[in-house]
């Protein structure tokens, strides 16, 4: 069915079944609490979906499960036409090269340089020799510069990660995923450390990139306005269940109230703990 080696051309993505499909998926945390219950989800290739919901609802767990970081307690998982947990370890690693998870807190070693951090995106596609050589002398400077350039970070190419702000680090994480060239992009709070203007700009950029490659994009967001502004399809998650799955145009205050009920009591501001950045954003 799916040829893993095909490049991302617009024709390919069209009609090969859903990009991802979850059926009756449950997941339990190590402590025994039920994190996800009875998740049924299908996303077509090239679709762009936002996941919203109160804190602790299970958005991160859902994304991590889709990234094959977690194995479901029950239910079926199908990603890019394959069942990841029925594959051999090697085949699963190859599948993972096509799935790009953007972490909320970018997992970048502080002393690493930005260029190496970005190049690490293609480790799954490189031979070991090429990977090790690139550690000493970066082999694809142009590719890394292009990915960073899309996020206006081209001048940070040779800086160390611990010299960047929270928002800049998040964008480096996004650049790494762009360099990886994933078919399925999973973004966990990708703009939480950015100010509202930059956040909106970055989300727009992420959406355009996904459309350009015909990649499927799922992003979890705290800020509902950003979700409604950029994504055509919204999924509301609450207490580990999908509360609603509708086009953005059909979302009204009723749905949001049901989703965030009782959240006023422990309402947290939409941004994450990272410092805010004032930046020159080129208006496109």
């Amino acid at each position: 069915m799916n040829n893993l080696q095909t490049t991302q051309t617009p024709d390919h993505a069209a009609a090969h079944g859903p990009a991802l499909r979850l059926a009756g998926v449950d997941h339990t945390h190590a402590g025994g609490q039920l994190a996800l219950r009875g998740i049924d989800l299908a996303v077509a290739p090239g679709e762009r979906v936002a996941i919203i919901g109160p804190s602790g609802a299970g958005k991160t767990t859902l994304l991590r499960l889709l990234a094959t970081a977690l194995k479901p307690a029950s239910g079926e998982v199908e990603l890019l036409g394959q069942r990841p947990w029925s594959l051999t370890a090697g085949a699963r690693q190859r599948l993972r090269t096509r799935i790009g998870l953007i972490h909320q807190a970018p997992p970048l070693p502080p002393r690493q340089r930005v260029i190496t951090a970005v190049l690490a995106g293609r480790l799954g596609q490189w031979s070991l020799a090429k990977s090790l050589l690139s550690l000493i002398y970066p082999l694809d400077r142009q590719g890394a510069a292009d990915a960073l350039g899309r996020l206006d970070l081209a001048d940070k190419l040779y800086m160390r990660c611990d010299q960047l702000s929270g928002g800049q680090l998040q964008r480096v994480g996004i650049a790494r995923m762009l360099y990886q060239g994933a078919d399925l992009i999973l973004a966990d709070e990708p703009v939480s450390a950015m100010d509202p203007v930059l956040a909106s700009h970055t989300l727009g950029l992420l959406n355009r990139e996904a459309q350009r490659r015909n990649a499927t994009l799922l992003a979890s967001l705290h800020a509902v306005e950003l979700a409604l502004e950029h994504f055509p399809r919204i999924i509301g998650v609450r207490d580990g269940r999908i509360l609603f799955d509708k086009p953005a145009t059909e979302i009204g205050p009723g749905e949001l109230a049901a989703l965030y009920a009782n959240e006023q009591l422990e309402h947290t501001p939409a941004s994450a703990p990272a410092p805010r950045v004032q930046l020159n954003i080129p208006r496109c």
Partner: protein
Amino acid sequence: MLNPAPVPRDPAATSRLLLTLLAVVLLWPGLRLSELDLGVLVDGSNADTMGSFVSAFLPPEHGGEFLVLLWQATLETLAIATAGMTLALAIAIPSALLATRALSLSALSRGGRPAWWTHALRWPVRGLLIVLRSIPEILWALLFVRAVGLGPTAGVLAIAITYAGMLGKVYAEIFESVDPLPARALLGGGASRLQAFFYGVLPQATGEMLSYSVYRWECAIRASVVMGFVGAGGLGQQMDLSMRMFAGGEVASMLLTFLALVLLADLLSRLLRWRFA
């Protein structure tokens, strides 16, 4: 928006490539000089000899006669370490007193810093202590074995000299690191240097001194075993003999005894340090 400008060069590239080049250039002669050959560990004829030697490790030798020999050798090692430390202390304490600035009379009027010409005695003594401890004790052992013959005497002398250097230097520094006011007050009141030491410095310094000395005693035990390999008696000398005779079982017993000895010494030293410090 594509960036048509060329990507700037990696600023770290030159130094990294040079370092890598240097490493590669040095690696080859290094391998040749060290004659590294991991194959010997698995080589055919070697493997047979090694194999029979290692297989003889089990069971460790436990014949009656041998155990008596083992016991004697262990006691000898302990005795070498203890006697060596005692002699070392006999040299170290006076040297430390001479080398330390804590008992300086000239410092009284200079806010704690001795006059430069008073160092005429201190620096040579310090220098001597540093020289004594820089030469590895096993070298002393080798020389003493040639001078006074095989056996524990060489080991005792080697430890005495090297550890005198270590203990002396550290003691001198301990004396300087405690609160100087009591000693200075005594010196200022007309006490002799020794009196100022015993009443002003020693009470504060005892804990640290004992702690370090006990730790050094533990090292001395290990050093005694190692020195035995060049003929300075004790467990090490016996181990060397057994190895030359390819008596694997005996070597195994002695290694186990050595490990047990080191463990016990560690426990004892911790007990004493806890008790005294």
